[in-house]
C-alpha cells in the first residue's frame, strides 16, 4: 500500500502545523502523491494514518476536506470529507468519497466481526434455537438452523459454516464503504458499512454491519446487529441482537430484540421480541407486540399480542402463523399455537390450537371459544388484494435478493393442506351426530354444519388451482410438441410422486428435494455459506417442475387414473366454473364495503348517501371491483382459447 503514498515534506508539515494541525509522529502520516496541504485544517493525527487524494469542497469559502478531527490509525480514501469529529476516528478504513460530518466518535476497538456471529434467540425466548446472524443469513438458512434442531449433524455443520464466515469477516479495523455518508451521530463503534450507505442522526451504533444502499436515520440505537442491503432503520428505532433484512423498513420508535426481519418486512411503532419475521412480515401499530413466533407475509393488526409463557418455566412457548396470516385489532394468541396459511385471526384466543391443515380460514371467537371456519378467507377481498401487492412491494435492489421467495397463494403447499383439510372435514362430518353443534379438532371448535360447506370452498380453490397449473403449462407449450407429452408426462428433473411440500420462510419446496440438500450439508458436500445458499437457490429454481410433477401424481392419486387429455379439458371447464363463482363471491365481499353498516357516520349533518359517494365512490366504479369484473368476463374467452389450442394440438 505504501507505494501509493509518500511521507509529508517538511514544508507541508510546517504548513499543516500553521493551519492548526498536529501529529504524535509526522513520520507515520502518509499522503497521496498529489497531496495538497490546504485540504486539511485543525486536524490531529495519531498512529499510522494514510490520506488519499483530497480536494477542498467546491463552493463558497472552499471548505477543507478534513477539519476539526482527530484521526487515529486510519486509512482515508480519495475524495473523503471529514469535518467536526468531536471525539475521534480510530482504526477505520474509509472508502472513496466518504463524507463524515459532525460526529462524536467512529472507532473500532479491537478485533471484531461487526455483528456477524451474534446469537439471536428467535422463536424460543428461553433459548434452544439461537441463530448466529451474518450478512449471509438468508431466511431459508435461518429457517433450517432454528427449526431443524432435530438434525444435530445439520446444526453442527451449519454452525461450522457460520463460524467460518464470521472468521472471514472479522477484522481489527472497521471499514466504511465508498460514497457513504455519516452525519450527526454521537457514537459509532465496531461498525462496518457497504457502499452508498447513509447514516444520519443515529444516536448510537455498536457492533454491526450495514450493507450497501441502506439508510440509518434519526435517533436510531442499534447494538449487535446486521442491516442488509437496501434496508431503512429510522426515526427512533431501537434494535438489539437483530437482523434487518433486504428492503426492510424499521422505524417510528419500533423496538426489537433477539429478532430477525427478512426481506421487505416493515416494523413501525410497535415491539418485537424473539421473532422470526419471514419475508413481508408487517407490523405498523402501537401497542402491538410480536413475540416468540414464526411469521411470514403477515400483517399484524393494532394491539395484536401473544403470550409465550404461563408463569411456569419461563418464556418457553412458541407460536407459528403460517404464511399470509392476519390478526385483527386487539387479537391475542396464547402460545403455543399454530395457525394455517392465509388465515384471518380475530379476538382473544386462550386455547392452544393447531389449524395447520386448514389454510384460508377464519379463526374467530364464538361465545369465548376459539372457532374455525375453514376456507372462508379464500373468498375474501383481502387475500386477492394481498396476492397482487406483494410482488409490487418488493423493495430489494437488483443483485441483493438473497432471500428466496415464492409469492404464490395457491401452490402445492396450500393445495396439499386443503386436500388434507377436506379429508378431515369429511371424517368429522361423517362421525358426528346431527345434534352436535360443534366439534373440537386440535384445540379449536368447528361448527358441524359448516364442515360440508367449507369442504366445498376448498374444492373451489383446488379447481381454480388445477386449472391455473394447466393454463401455465399451455403458455409454455410450443404447438409443434406432442400435447400428450407436455400435458401428461412428468418433468424428468422434477421430484416424483405426491410428497410433502414445506414453506421454509418464504420459499416453497418439495421436502424430498430439501432433504437431499440437507444431507449434502451434513456430508460437507456443501461446506461454505455461499454453497449452501446456492443449493437453496437450485431448490427454488425447481419449483415449477416439482409443482408439475406433484400435480400429475396428485391427480392420479385423486382419480385412480393417469391424467388424460379428456381430463385436462374437463378440468379447464371446472376451472372456469369455479373461477366464476370465486370472482362473484369476492365481488360480493367487496360489496359489503359499500352497503349497510359501513355507511354509518357518513353525512354527519345529513346527506349521508352523497357524502358516502363523494368519499368512497360507488361499488361498480371501484378499481378493484372493476378489475375483478374484468377477470370474470375474461374467463369464457381464456377457457375456450385453451380448449381450442388443445384440440388443434
Amino acid at each position: 500500500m505504501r507505494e501509493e503514498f509518500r511521507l509529508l515534506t517538511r514544508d507541508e508539515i510546517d504548513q499543516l502545523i500553521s493551519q492548526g494541525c498536529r501529529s504524535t509522529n509526522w513520520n507515520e502520516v502518509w499522503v497521496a502523491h498529489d497531496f495538497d496541504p490546504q485540504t486539511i485544517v485543525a486536524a490531529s493525527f495519531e498512529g499510522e494514518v494514510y490520506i488519499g487524494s483530497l480536494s477542498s469542497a467546491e463552493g463558497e469559502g472552499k471548505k477543507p476536506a478534513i477539519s476539526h478531527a482527530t484521526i487515529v490509525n486510519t486509512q482515508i480514501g480519495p475524495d473523503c470529507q471529514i469535518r467536526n469529529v468531536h471525539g475521534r476516528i480510530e482504526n477505520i478504513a474509509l472508502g472513496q468519497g466518504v463524507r463524515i460530518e459532525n460526529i462524536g466518535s467512529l472507532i473500532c476497538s479491537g478485533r471484531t466481526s461487526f455483528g456477524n456471529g451474534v446469537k439471536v434467540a428467535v422463536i424460543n425466548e428461553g433459548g434452544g434455537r439461537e441463530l448466529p446472524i451474518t450478512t449471509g443469513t438468508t431466511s431459508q438458512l435461518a429457517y433450517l438452523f432454528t427449526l431443524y434442531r432435530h438434525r444435530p449433524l445439520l446444526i453442527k455443520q451449519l454452525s461450522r459454516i457460520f463460524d467460518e464466515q464470521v472468521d472471514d469477516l472479522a477484522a481489527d479495523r472497521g471499514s466504511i464503504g465508498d460514497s457513504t455518508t455519516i452525519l450527526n451521530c454521537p457514537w459509532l463503534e465496531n461498525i462496518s458499512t457497504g457502499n452508498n450507505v447513509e447514516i444520519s442522526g443515529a444516536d448510537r451504533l455498536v457492533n454491526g454491519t450495514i450493507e450497501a444502499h441502506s439508510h440509518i436515520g434519526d435517533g436510531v440505537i442499534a447494538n449487535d446487529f446486521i442491516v442488509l442491503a437496501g434496508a431503512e432503520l429510522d426515526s427512533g428505532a431501537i434494535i438489539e441482537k437483530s437482523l434487518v433484512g433486504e428492503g426492510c423498513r424499521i422505524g417510528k420508535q419500533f423496538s426489537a430484540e433477539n429478532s430477525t426481519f427478512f426481506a421487505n418486512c416493515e416494523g413501525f411503532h410497535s415491539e418485537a421480541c424473539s421473532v422470526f419475521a419471514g419475508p413481508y412480515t408487517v407490523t405498523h401499530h402501537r401497542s402491538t407486540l410480536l413475540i416468540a413466533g414464526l411469521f411470514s407475509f403477515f400483517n399484524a393488526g393494532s394491539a395484536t399480542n401473544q403470550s409465550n409463557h404461563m408463569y411456569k418455566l419461563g418464556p418457553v412457548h412458541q407460536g407459528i402463523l403460517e404464511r399470509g396470516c392476519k390478526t385483527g385489532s386487539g387479537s391475542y394468541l396464547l402460545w403455543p399455537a399454530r395457525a394455517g396459511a392465509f388465515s384471518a385471526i380475530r379476538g382473544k384466543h386462550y386455547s392452544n390450537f393447531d389449524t395447520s391443515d386448514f389454510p384460508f380460514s377464519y379463526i374467530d371467537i364464538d361465545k369465548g371459544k376459539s372457532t374455525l371456519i375453514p376456507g372462508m378467507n379464500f373468498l375474501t377481498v383481502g387475500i386477492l388484494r394481498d396476492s397482487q401487492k406483494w410482488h409490487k412491494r418488493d423493495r430489494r435492489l437488483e443483485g441483493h435478493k438473497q432471500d428466496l421467495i415464492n409469492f404464490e397463494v395457491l401452490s402445492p403447499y396450500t393445495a396439499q393442506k386443503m386436500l388434507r383439510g377436506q379429508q378431515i372435514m369429511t371424517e368429522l362430518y361423517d362421525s358426528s351426530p346431527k345434534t352436535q353443534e360443534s366439534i373440537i379438532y386440535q384445540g379449536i371448535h368447528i361448527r358441524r354444519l359448516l364442515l360440508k360447506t367449507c369442504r366445498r370452498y376448498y374444492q373451489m380453490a383446488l379447481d381454480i388451482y388445477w386449472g391455473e397449473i394447466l393454463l401455465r403449462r399451455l403458455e409454455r407449450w410450443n404447438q409443434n410438441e406432442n400435447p400428450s407429452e407436455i400435458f401428461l408426462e412428468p418433468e424428468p428433473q422434477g421430484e416424483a410422486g405426491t410428497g410433502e411440500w414445506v414453506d421454509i420462510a418464504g420459499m416453497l419446496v418439495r421436502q424430498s428435494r430439501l432433504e437431499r440438500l440437507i444431507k449434502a450439508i451434513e456430508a460437507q458436500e456443501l461446506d461454505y455459506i455461499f454453497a449452501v445458499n446456492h443449493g437453496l437457490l437450485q431448490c427454488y429454481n425447481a419449483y415449477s417442475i416439482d409443482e408439475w410433477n406433484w400435480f400429475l401424481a396428485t391427480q392420479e392419486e385423486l382419480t385412480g387414473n393417469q391424467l388424460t387429455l379428456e381430463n385436462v379439458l374437463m378440468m379447464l371447464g371446472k376451472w372456469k366454473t369455479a373461477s366464476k363463482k370465486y370472482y362473484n363471491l369476492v365481488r360480493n365481499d367487496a360489496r359489503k364495503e359499500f352497503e349497510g353498516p359501513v355507511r354509518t357516520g357518513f353525512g354527519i349533518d345529513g346527506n349521508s348517501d352523497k357524502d358516502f359517494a363523494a368519499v368512497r365512490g360507488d361499488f361498480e366504479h371501484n378499481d378493484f371491483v372493476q378489475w375483478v369484473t374484468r377477470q370474470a368476463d375474461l374467463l369464457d374467452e381464456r377457457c375456450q382459447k385453451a380448449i381450442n389450442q388443445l384440440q388443434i394440438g
Partner: protein
Amino acid sequence: MSDTITRVKKVTADLLKINLEQIDDNARFVEDLGAESIQSIELVAAFEEEFDIEMDEDAALAVRNINDAVTFIDKVIARG
C-alpha cells in the same frame, strides 16, 4: 303454509336461537332476524342438510329473506 316454508322457518329459528313465532314470511335474515355473516353461511348449510340438497354458494348467499329462500330451495329440489 307449504311444507318448505315451515321447515325453513324451523331451521332458521333453531340456528338463530329465536322464537318461531317471530319469523314472518318476509323476514330478512340479516336485518330482521339478526343473522351475522357466518350465520348466513350456516343457514345455507342447515337448509342443505334439512332438505338433503346442495346449493350454489354465491346464489344461495344472495337470498335475503324467508320467502326467497323457500322459492330458491323449491327450485333446487325441483331440479333434482
